[in-house]
């Protein structure tokens, strides 16, 4: 990566951490569009708990603790795990430059 590429990457990563780790706490807690529509149309009650509902990170909280630290930690873990999986996948899939290409 070039120096400017690295700067962009670091700024983007910091922004993702800030959004997921801090700003997410201030997000709206109202039901989202799908939930709202399901309520109005009358099929909301057909929702079942996910098999992962007992996950320690369920509902974007660590162990269900409803506080800033728990929500922030859950967000940061999500960003890091997503980055590791998607970043690993795209690095494996990429066409690698041959040494001759690197000028």
């Amino acid at each position, binding site marked *: *990566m*070039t120096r*400017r*590429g690295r700067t*962009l*990457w670091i700024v*983007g*990563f910091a922004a*993702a*951490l800030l*959004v*997921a780790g801090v700003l997410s706490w*201030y*997000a*709206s*807690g*109202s*039901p*989202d*569009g799908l*939930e*709202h*529509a399901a309520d*109005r*149309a*009358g*099929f909301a009650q*057909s*929702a*079942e708990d*996910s098999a*992962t509902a*007992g*996950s320690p*990170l*369920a*509902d*974007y*909280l660590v162990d269900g603790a*409803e506080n800033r630290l728990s*929500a922030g930690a*859950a*967000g940061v*873990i*999500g*960003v890091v*795990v*997503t*980055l590791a*999986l*998607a*970043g690993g*996948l*795209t*690095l494996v*899939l*990429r*066409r*690698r*430059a041959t040494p001759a290409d690197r000028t």
Partner: protein
Amino acid sequence: MCNKVVVVHVPDGFLDVPTSLATGALAAGTVALALRKARTELDDRTAPLAGLTAAFVFAGQMINFPVATGTSGHLIGAVLAAVLVGPWTAVLCMTVVLLVQAVLFADGGLTALGTNVTLMALMAVVIGYGVFRGLSALLPRTRTGLLTATGTAAFLSVPAAALAFVVLFEIGGTVDVPLGTVAAAMTGVHLLIGLGEAAITVAVVGAVLAVRPDLVHGAARLRTATPLAGRPAAVMEGAR
């Protein structure tokens, strides 16, 4: 004050088993194809940005913004990803985000994962990127033209995904609700959410375009523009 993050994708139970199996197969086929095709979009320069894009979409989806009284919406990020890193890579980025949310955060059911991938990694990308390409061909090859196409595509991707859900619910909904009722409940609110989607997408793509236009997949046409069109200075500078 306690604001639990709500996000909310399609949970288990909304759609019957045959429909969930069908969307699961469609999703698996799409991802398999994307794994092959994404190679053409990914190289040493763009691969690191692709991973970051997925992480950013995950973060962005955590921000539910109010759209009407008692209702919120959140970013999908399909057009954001497709314009930044290419449509095939966007399918993979969106799928990873949905997988992490379903497995770790219990957001979106496990049996509904295929449905969520179909709606947000397939439909939103196909419709959104299709609109983006179509408008890009019509609009001037400038920064403004590109961002106009991006914003319109992002806006339309949300009702497109919502309507795709309506169709799936008509086919395999577990509760018998008239099509018109579901469509009416889904459409209005998702048009409003689309405005938020467009605003966030334009802001992020615009920011990356300002510093590294050479890394924006959807800006390839800006780079091939003649020196008299668009903003040649920015294009040349962006070429590092």
